[in-house]
């Protein structure tokens, strides 16, 4: 298992896999198979994939510990960057077709509509994470500060779920599904933080969760 995880080719395969949803969208655009409302189709698809990749990214730490697979860290940055990639596409479908690339109209909309506000907040909070995702930035910021900054993915995930929840009219099953996943992943962290604090209370040395080679 370990050799599979650290293989260069696994990383390439995961990378290509992450591009499949994008490829499907491009394919559908070329074949004009986006249904009656192509813009909405792209908005929903890119939004869905953003939430999914945020969830995948948040799965890495618990999975590393639960399944004793520390090498999973090798995929965390890539998954996070793909979440950012899909949220950028998602944002473009809003800025372009919805707001006609009119920035002042967009700001008004962001200020006025709570569901847009939280979605926009989630998007903006992911920008510094994408920028500081390199090894150089981890060094510059120092592991602890870097880790603190990158915890804002929790904020982005929660905002993303609220954004989805406030969008739908009455059938809240899908937003609640994502909400439940995010809740489980965040509660697990809370739980492990508490148990760690208890077991290491006198020493208070946190196991470093950040790996530079990740």
């Amino acid at each position, binding site marked *: 298992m370990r050799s599979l995880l650290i293989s260069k080719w696994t990383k390439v395969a995961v990378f290509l896999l992450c591009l499949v949803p994008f490829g499907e969208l491009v394919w559908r655009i070329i074949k004009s198979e986006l249904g*009656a*409302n*192509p813009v*909405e189709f792209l908005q929903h698809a890119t939004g869905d994939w953003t939430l999914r990749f945020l969830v995948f990214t948040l799965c890495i730490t618990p999975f590393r510990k639960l399944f004793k697979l520390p090498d999973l860290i090798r995929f965390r940055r890539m998954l996070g960057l793909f979440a950012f990639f899909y949220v950028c596409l998602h944002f473009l479908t809003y800025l372009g077709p*919805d707001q006609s690339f009119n920035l002042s109209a967009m700001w008004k909309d962001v200020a006025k509509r709570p569901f847009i506000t939280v979605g926009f907040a989630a998007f903006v909070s992911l920008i510094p994470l994408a920028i500081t995702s390199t090894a150089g930035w981890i060094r510059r910021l120092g592991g602890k500060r870097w880790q603190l900054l990158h915890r804002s993915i929790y904020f982005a995930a929660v905002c993303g779920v609220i954004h989805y929840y406030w969008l739908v*009219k009455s*059938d809240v099953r899908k937003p609640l599904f994502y909400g439940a996943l995010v809740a489980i992943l965040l509660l697990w962290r809370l739980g492990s933080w508490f148990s760690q604090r208890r077991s290491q209370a006198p020493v208070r040395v946190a196991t470093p969760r950040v790996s530079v080679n990740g």
Partner: protein
Amino acid sequence: MLIRKAPELTYADVTPKSVYLDRRKFLQAMGIVGATAVAGRSLFDITFPSQTAFAATKFTGLVKSPFSTTEKQNTLEDVTHYNNFYEFGTDKGDPAKNSKNFQTSPWTVSVEGEVKKPRKFTMDEILKIAPLEERVYRHRCVEAWSIVVPWIGFSFSNLIKLVEPTPKAQFVAFESYFDPRQMPQGRYAGLDFPYVEGLRMDEAMNPLALLCVGMYGETLPNQDGAPVRITLPWKYGFKSAKSLVKIKFQEKMPPTTWNRLASNEYGFYANVNPTVDHPRWSQAKERRLGEIFKRPTLMFNGYADQVAAMYSGMDLKKNY
């Protein structure tokens, strides 16, 4: 289907679409390949027409309406695969998938309440109330998308006159069919079914209010509200209740489905109004299906000349 000497066609007797389509296919194919092989295939289709095609039957002799817009119509494909019909599921594509076997024949509509002549109408009786017109209307959803559809029907006022409402009749309530066995997806909709909508009497009498039995020259597809619905082009789409089984005239304003779910978001009037936003999104613009950028939404969806007088003196910000 029995061959009988019907003096006139009834709702269920019009040639199934698969038959005339296959005849056309048959004639086309004759020119290309040998007649014998195709004849066998065509005969098969005529003998066993597919069940889904049975519902779509053609209307002839439709009257053109002065209310029709000349705007570009959306395609039948778009209008039948992008639906809000929550009884059949909440995804836009769900109604097309899940309504395939919806039983719409036999069908009766009960007209009751504050009327001198309450009665039940069969579909055949409904089709004979008034000459069928084709009306090309703009249809604006509360979700800020819109379509242009050639509906078929007649002014609802024709039916109202037949049943003679009493002076007590101030409102009319429309109730849609609901059968959890045929509509199992309805339980996830988050709405209370059966679906109920309503109008004030003067709104119901407005000639634009269309009792609708078809579109694109044919009977209504199941996902668009077969076999009979109401179509109110100056109001958001959710007011136009589908698959009607009950029409009730009453003294009090009927509680309506979306209004009961969220009265701050969906008013009783629900007139299309670009100046009054939905609490969660703007109503100033809309996306016409088939277009990328949004276009401005018109007051009363562009039907102000016909309907604005009914609301003069009303605060439309309060009565949204």
